[in-house]
């Protein structure tokens, strides 16, 4: 009989209007317990109004070895940013 609990990642919404943000992890035997533990560990100082927990094993991550292929090609697409376009100063509200 194993007594090791599953690793969960914890995401907290600090207040209404903000996204959930990863804050850390904890161990729990089930999801209900994971939420309770997250509440007791990560919101002791009113850090949150909502909690998500996800089994760490259920998170799929991009392979860091592919980072260059995944992320570098966006580097030269500077036309996606408003500063790429020059507009005379006297033109307002644009």
């Amino acid at each position, binding site marked *: 009989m194993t*007594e*090791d*609990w599953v690793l969960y990642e914890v995401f907290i919404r600090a207040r209404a209007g903000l996204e959930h943000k990863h804050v*850390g*992890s904890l161990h729990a*035997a*089930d*999801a209900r317990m994971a939420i309770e533990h997250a509440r007791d560990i990560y919101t002791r100082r009113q850090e949150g109004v*909502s909690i998500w927990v996800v089994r760490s094993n259920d998170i799929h991550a991009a392979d*860091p070895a592919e980072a260059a292929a995944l992320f570098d090609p966006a580097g030269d697409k500077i036309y996606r940013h408003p500063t790429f376009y020059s507009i005379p100063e006297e033109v307002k509200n644009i």
Partner: protein
Amino acid sequence: MYTQALDAQPGAAGADDAEQQARLARFQERIDRDEKIEPTDWMPEQYRHMLIRQIAQHAHSEIVGMLPEGNWITRAPSLRRKVVLIAKVQDEGGHGLYLYSAAETLGVTRAALIEQLLAGQARYSSIFNYPTLTWADIGAIGWLVDGAAIMNQIPLCRCSYGPYARAMVRICKEESFHQRQGYELMLTLARGSAAQRAMAQDAFARWWRPALMMFGPSDAHSVHTAQSMRWKIKRFSNDELRQKFIDATVPQAHFLGLSIPDPELRWDAASQHFQTGPIDWGEFEAVLRGDGPCNRERLAARREAHEAGAWVRAAAVAYAEKHPEHAPAASVG
């Protein structure tokens, strides 16, 4: 500090061929640019090992550190002091947990780290092997031990390893009340009855030198410091931090009207620092080896909790396996 034993470990770089040298150089460049290293990034094995050991020692120190202060929770002399102490010891548990979490990102499980602690194979800060004999010890620990810890931990918020640095940011934010409550407690005793003042002086006399030892051996004898500093796992040397602590603490002790248990302590006008008498490193090493006043009791208490909890942990696993449907999903939104 909480990871002081690392300083006694020998270090050896393990780069043997050109490619490895180049990777190491690129890794060092990233660190020199103050980039954070994240769990899935390539890192030298020695960096990983040093980090695991350092974070685990830090985590173990928090967990073992719950015991000397926990010793006085049931006897706190006012309800206000009691809730403060519970909240503080609880924070230490939380900090241990954040740190174990950070260590787990390096590919080691908390269960394995705890196993090492319980088997007596892991180190933790020597300070927690000293006994808490009176209520004033709770004040002395908050003021001196947490004060020393903060000196060490604030620079670690800028440590090169992302999860460790983030855990330290959280810990430092939460710990900001720990030292203040300790000093406030000492102040109340110092302004109290003769018996309370004597209690404060006695506690200070017993905790002052162990607190100085928390920073670890002198730089001259600390083999690991150089590599740790190059990799920004550690950001200041033991002696620098110790001096900073002494300079900050001596005036605080004077304000309390406490006498410092060191006849050689003096202000050195030339260096603008307080100078102390020699530290008994023999005692420090004995405590680290396991021969401090409470090493056995501390480990025994951790083992007992772990063993007594085994059936509880197993029951929760058994229930979850029987009832996967009873584990309600988080209400998303």
